[in-house]
């Protein structure tokens, strides 16, 4: 495959994984946890690098999961000590992110990791790190990692579909039925973390937030059915990623920036034209809201 094909495939995989997992971020009203986790996984990745002394996919995934779940745990803990929820989030993620930045500057120095890369990603470099897998052949490491993570996410979402639905809609009922609401919360935070880690190389910590939240927020405007919302959100993610690549190629600018911009465009279009909740629909038939 050509470099361009690998880059577009990787971007599409980022869009798909983030789009699917983002649906539950929106529905659980924890969209900003994505922001927090996307920053703190940096710390997890740096520590994984310090421990193993190599930039390997698995070590990064494990470091990222631990950092993400640790973030969720700290936020919950501070909140239980009467710190407001959003403030708790702000305190935890900036502190952990800062530790990550300091570690990069002091201990990791010259390596593959640098802050610029961590924040913005560099999808054009992805085809330079090829690995060889059985059956598949040569594939960029980041793309392979994304495929693995996508499989994991889809497995968990499909296997526990009704549990995700009920714990998102009515956690009190879920708990009274004996569904482990808190465990599901941390499992979900773990899934957000792996998605973020896998997308890190491609789009970086800041743009991954756009990929997680905006396609799902757009899909929310188009449908009243959860399963369709998942499909739609994943598709919006893919469309934004691919469109973003071509915008970047066209005006010769940052690919991850263009991808995030494309998600914004999709949202704008949804906000105006969606048949159910769009601005125009509301203008045309304002009375039919009840």
């Amino acid at each position, binding site marked *: 495959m050509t470099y361009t094909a690998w880059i577009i495939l990787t971007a599409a995989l980022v869009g798909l994984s983030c789009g699917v997992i983002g649906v539950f971020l929106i*529905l659980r*009203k924890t969209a900003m946890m994505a922001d927090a986790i996307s920053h703190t996984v940096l710390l997890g990745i740096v520590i994984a690098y310090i421990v193993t002394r190599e930039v390997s996919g698995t070590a990064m995934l494990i470091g990222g999961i631990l950092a993400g779940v640790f973030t969720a745990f700290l936020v919950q803990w501070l909140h239980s000590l*009467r710190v407001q929820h959003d403030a708790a989030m702000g305190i935890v993620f900036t502190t952990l992110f800062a530790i990550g930045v300091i570690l990069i500057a002091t201990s990791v120095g010259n390596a593959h990791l640098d802050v610029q890369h961590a924040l913005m990603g560099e999808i054009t470099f992805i085809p330079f790190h090829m690995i060889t897998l059985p059956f598949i052949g040569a594939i960029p490491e980041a793309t392979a990692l994304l495929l693995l993570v996508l499989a994991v996410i889809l497995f968990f979402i499909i*296997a*526990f*579909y*009704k*549990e995700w*639905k*009920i714990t*998102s*809609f*009515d956690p*009190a*009922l*879920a*708990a*009274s*039925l*004996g*569904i482990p609401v808190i465990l599901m919360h941390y499992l979900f935070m773990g899934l957000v973390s792996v998605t973020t880690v896998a997308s890190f190389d491609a789009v970086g910590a800041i743009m991954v937030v756009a990929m997680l939240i905006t396609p799902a927020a757009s899909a*929310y405007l188009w*449908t*009243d*059915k*959860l399963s*369709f*919302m998942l499909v739609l959100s994943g598709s919006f993610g893919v469309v934004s990623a691919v469109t973003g690549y071509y915008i970047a190629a066209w005006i010769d600018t940052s690919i991850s920036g263009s991808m995030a911009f494309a998600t914004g465009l999709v949202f704008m279009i949804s906000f105006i034209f969606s048949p159910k909740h769009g601005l125009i629909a509301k203008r045309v038939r304002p009375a039919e809201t*009840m």
Partner: protein
Amino acid sequence: MATPILQVENLSASYRKNTVLHDINFEVNGGSLTGIVGPNGAGKSTLLKTILNLHPSLTGSVKFFGLPFIKAKKRIGYVPQRGSVDWDFPTDALDVVTMGLYGQIGWLRRPSRLHKERAYEALDKMGMADYANRQISQLSGGQQQRVFLARALVQDADFYFMDEPLAGVDAATERAIMTILKELKAIGKTVMVVHHDLQTVEDYFDHVLLLNRTVIKHGKTEQIFTRENIANTYGGNMRWMGEEQRHAVHSIE
């Protein structure tokens, strides 16, 4: 009388550092319909949540059918306050009712057609069959409450806890819900309902639990629901609610 199916002993609970409930002791017999009544901030919702293990208790023990909650949970149904969920969630009425069956369906299984049929029957019972496929945000407050009731019915529990099911609903829904509650009682189920309207307590409930951070009085409505006990529960604020309005009701009769 049968042995009590709910025994609450020395229960206390707090929100953050404020103790909301203390020294709660009461027993409930099977087949009763109990109204939990008390002023705002008396801890009515917290009492339900603490009994059902949804809110941590500081002290005390709760036994259902002589067992701890974990072992009895399949026989217990809970109807949270309508305002506790997001009605813009992308789902329809039938799906919400089906959620009542998720505990029985179990892990890694999808709701079957049989489950959907049972959910539909429960909706039908609440007069909501025509709205089965309606997006939940398009239902009125009363209809949403009926969906919640249908979800509780489909659980087929023996003991129901309901948090303000009659708050902010239309008269037809209130009648429909009370009919169902009396039916549940008639087939031997036990129901505890957080209730806010003092004027209807005598008509609706055979037992009443007067609560203001602790149990003020608990027992048969005709013995317990007296002016004096209500005054003790509501403190100085009850004068206008109790005396004058009750008086007005009587004069209409």
